[in-house]
């Protein structure tokens, strides 16, 4: 079966399609990668460069830049927080969150005794990444039908899925269990700090998922992939 016929079949059955031909490759906006001299490249990178030279490349999205402040994880988080296409509001909330994280940490830093000062992390980006990593589940559950019943089967998760679950739990937690008077960025910074020190509701939810997976480990053989 030729490649073109496979492509056409795929077009018929999948609903999620793209305006780009599948021949197009993803763009690479970071500028450090283009300044590396020939000698520092591995064979894989050299091959990738040769491939990129002959293939057309997609256009970079609106939220990506070559700036050092551009973070794909943060962009994804902003998009997930966004409602009704209000990106400005979502991004504003995130900026306020990072600012309030910084303020709280700096306050702690100044109040702490000399010995403890080095342990306090003041970089809000580092806190955000570490908190997300602490929230990411290691194993997940999948609903598999066998013999007419649906079983919750423990299943390994991909990195993207784990990151998505961590961010989703964080956002839903902040939206649902928020006091009426507290603002979103306030609650989010509290949750992030709690997750950074491995406390809080999101971490609890992660542990519950792990416990469920552990208890259902008898059904692990139902997974066929």
């Amino acid at each position, binding site marked *: *079966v*030729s490649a*073109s016929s496979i492509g056409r079949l795929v077009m018929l059955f999948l609903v999620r399609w793209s*305006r*780009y031909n599948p021949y197009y490759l993803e*763009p*690479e*906006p970071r*500028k450090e990668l*283009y300044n590396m001299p020939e000698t520092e490249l591995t064979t894989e990178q050299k*091959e990738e460069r*040769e*491939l*990129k*030279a*002959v*293939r*057309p*490349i*997609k*256009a*970079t999205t*609106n*939220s990506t*830049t*070559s*700036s050092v402040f*551009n973070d794909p994880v943060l962009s994804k988080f902003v998009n997930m927080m966004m409602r009704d296409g209000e*990106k*400005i509001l979502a*991004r504003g909330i995130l900026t306020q969150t990072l600012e309030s994280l910084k303020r709280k940490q700096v306050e702690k830093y100044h109040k702490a005794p000399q010995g403890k000062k080095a342990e306090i992390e003041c970089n809000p980006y580092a806190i955000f990444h570490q908190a997300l990593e602490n929230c990411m589940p290691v194993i997940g559950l999948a609903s598999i039908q066998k013999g007419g019943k649906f079983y919750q089967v423990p299943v390994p998760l991909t990195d993207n899925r784990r990151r998505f679950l961590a961010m989703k739990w964080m956002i839903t937690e902040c939206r649902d269990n928020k006091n009426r008077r507290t603002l979103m960025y306030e609650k989010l910074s509290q949750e992030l700090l709690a997750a950074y020190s491995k406390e809080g509701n999101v971490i609890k939810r992660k542990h519950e998922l792990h416990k469920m997976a552990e208890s259902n480990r008898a059904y692990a053989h139902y997974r066929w992939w």
Partner: protein
Amino acid sequence: MEWTSSLIVPQDSIKSNWLIPAPPKVLSRQLCVSSALHRKNLAAAGPEKFSEEFIKKQVEEYNIGKRHLANIMGEDPETFTQQDIDRSIAYLFPSGLFDKRARPLMKVRPEFLPGQLKSVQWGADGRPFHFLFYTGKQSYYSLMHDTVAKVLAAEKQQVLLLSEGPVPQDTKPISLVGSRWLLKEELEELLVETISDHDYARFIQLMERLLSLPNCLSEKDFVQRYRKQLEIQSSKQQVAPLQYDENGVAYSTADGRRKTATCTVLLRDCGSGSISINGRDYLHYFPVLQDREQLMFPFHFLDMLGRFDGQCTVGGGGRSSQAGALRLAISRAMLSFLSEGQVESMRQAGLLTPDPRVKERKKPGQEGARRKFTWKKR
């Protein structure tokens, strides 16, 4: 009514077995065939077949005739094209016939051009030239035969080398990155034969197997014949030459589009770094940080942040699409100031591709492009 004589001769070579009855002996007689039957038989014979020497003779005669015609017209025989031939014939043999196909013509039959038609594959005695003729796809099977011979030779050589001592093998001696396998249609064109999808898949499988062997460097030419070089994408970029105004300052203009927003940009190599959009400063026009980031993206990527002075006009679309259109226009305008390596890195960063995403249309029976109407049970 047409009369055709045909002779049905009993097969003397078949020895009649006492179990099998002998075939009936039919004497030769005239067969009366109607014109309708005769027409059917012609169609059943298939397309007209020509022998190799006939085709060669026709092409030679055409070439000689072309040279004669050029001499007649007083032109150079070496540079006499088909268009000149048509012109000369129309001049020498003027025809008032309405149907263009009925006018005199001097052309090689399109089937006789190389790679179009298979000449008759058997000689006057009826014996085919190629030993694989009776497979039906002789070029395909002979190609597979040759490739398998090469694979076996390479494996034998590998065994010999291994018996001498363990040799460090480098992965992929033949580089595959800048080329692709010929498509099924292209292979059919090369072989002048139709092959099935299964045949094509087997061919590709066999070639991949040949390439997986370590000592296949000697077969590089053979493999390259069945691979097509992909053209380098950066050569497709059209870079306008740099223009200079009266003060000697270099400038360039470019357009950009994104969704419904269109814009034009004039970049001047001043050294000020100020950008004005529709007469207003960019800080006033784009109060949102994301749009300003998009505007500065091409400058920041090439480390030319304060170098250029921009005058832009933008219209249509929303704030985000206007920013995207400006980004594309700025990247295009900057191309004339850059070296080829920088152009290629801009292209790989995704700055030079126009974004094809547009608003998806609403479909009938649905509320929006994707949203369906509320499902009601009854």
